């Protein structure tokens, strides 16, 4: 059963022209004695672009074929990242779908993957991952100014801002939703 305009609401996922969208804003308006207008802002689940659209009562929208699976990361091969699914089958996800997330993967890392028509479109990592700093300038001790950061690099070449007290060889926590430094992991 496809959706009708009266099903529309914030958070609903719909498909238009083969693209899955999530409704990020929704407003119901209805002129006196007239037909309802359902104003929506929609975000593409493929490339994140947003569009606005006014739907009318008799508009019909497709339900996207979406499936979520938990996959376990194995290794990378060229620009593909190879995961293992629940049935121990290999699934390749292109780096372009992963975006910066590809830098935060580690062996056996469990990720939630959203498939649209069987094609992976969105990969959600654990919120925090631990990574070793492979390159950064030494921090100047005694600098007490707050919120001062410096660039640091992790394996794979991803660069992020870290506090001055973080040194090369340190392990840090990265927030995968923002790609930003979250915390330093102290050695036991």
């Amino acid at each position, binding site marked *: 059963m496809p959706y009708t305009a009266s099903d529309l609401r914030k958070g609903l996922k719909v498909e238009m022209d083969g693209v899955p969208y999530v409704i990020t804003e929704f407003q119901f308006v209805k002129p006196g004695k007239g037909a309802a*207008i359902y104003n929506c802002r929609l975000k593409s689940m493929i490339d994140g672009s947003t569009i606005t659209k006014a739907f009318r009562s008799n508009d019909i929208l497709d339900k996207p074929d979406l499936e979520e699976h938990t996959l376990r990361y194995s290794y990378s091969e060229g620009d593909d990242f190879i995961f293992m699914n629940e049935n121990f089958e290999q699934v390749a996800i292109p780096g372009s779908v992963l975006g910066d997330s590809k830098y935060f993967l580690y062996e056996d890392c469990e990720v939630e993957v959203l498939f649209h028509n069987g094609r992976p479109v969105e990969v959600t990592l654990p919120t925090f991952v631990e990574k070793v700093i492979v390159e950064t300038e030494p921090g100047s001790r005694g600098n007490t100014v707050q919120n001062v950061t410096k660039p640091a690099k992790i394996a794979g070449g991803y660069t992020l801002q870290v506090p001055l007290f973080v040194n090369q060889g340190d392990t840090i926590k990265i927030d995968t939703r923002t790609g930003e430094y979250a915390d330093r992991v102290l050695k036991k």
Partner: protein
Amino acid sequence: MRLLNRIPPEAERLAAARGVLQIRARLLQAIRSFFVSRGYLEVETPVRIPVPALERHIDAEPAGDHFLRTSPEFHMKRLLAAGYEKIFQIGPCFRRGERGRFHHPEYTMLEWYRAGANYLDMLNEMESLMAEAVQAVQGLLQTPYQGRLISWTPPWERMRVADAFRAWAGWDPVAAYDADRFDRDLVERVEPQLPMNRPVVLKDYPAEAAALARLNASNPRVAERWELYAGGLELANAFSELTDPTEMRRRFTQWSAERQAAGQAVYPADPAFLAALEAGLPPSGGVALGVDRLVMLLADVRSLDDVLPFREPLE
């Protein structure tokens, strides 16, 4: 974040609504005293009805083998046909699927009808009602709303729909009507241009948007219908009532066919209402006013939710 999104507990929310409830109570009292002093009879007609009023774009909420009324209009016209000349009613109405900043599926409607009056007579009465009601609730004829001051002093500005559309939407829906474009441009182009600091009345709708209004005798391209706007809100709708049973049947047939084609629920034409028209409905004027929206204005709040303390959450 958690604190900001927290829904206040029941008692806190209801206690905070005291000011709004007081405004509503004073408004209802002022409305009743206005109509009673003018010789109107307050009536109550059934809320749970066997056949909902058939209109092109209004869906009724089913209630078992009955429906909840979308307006008291047909029953009140049956009273007019039976010789009641001045009647008013304040009560709950229900519209399926209407939920937004200015819509709630259950709301309070004021409707009044007067035999022998036309839509412009009703507009004069609407001006007097608002002057008296706003004065009674606020002690002056001005309503501060969302940073502006709405002055209710009559007479209000009247604007023909054709003129408003020509000015702001670049076309004349009375000359050549396009239903989809009319609704869209009304909401997106015309309504945003209406003055915010005083009431304004859009009148003389295209014949195709007549709803239950009669067409003008000398110019059948326009329907004798008006809508009152204030502060960006559509507050009231009025007609010179359609009393011709043949034309009424024709519109019912057309709306049924259009609803069927659009996959909407189709309701039978209300036989008791048609019988009343056949028996003879006197020429009459009628107005329907959204009481909750008026409370919104008088309470200076942005959303209908703010005047409905028991509303269900929007999302």
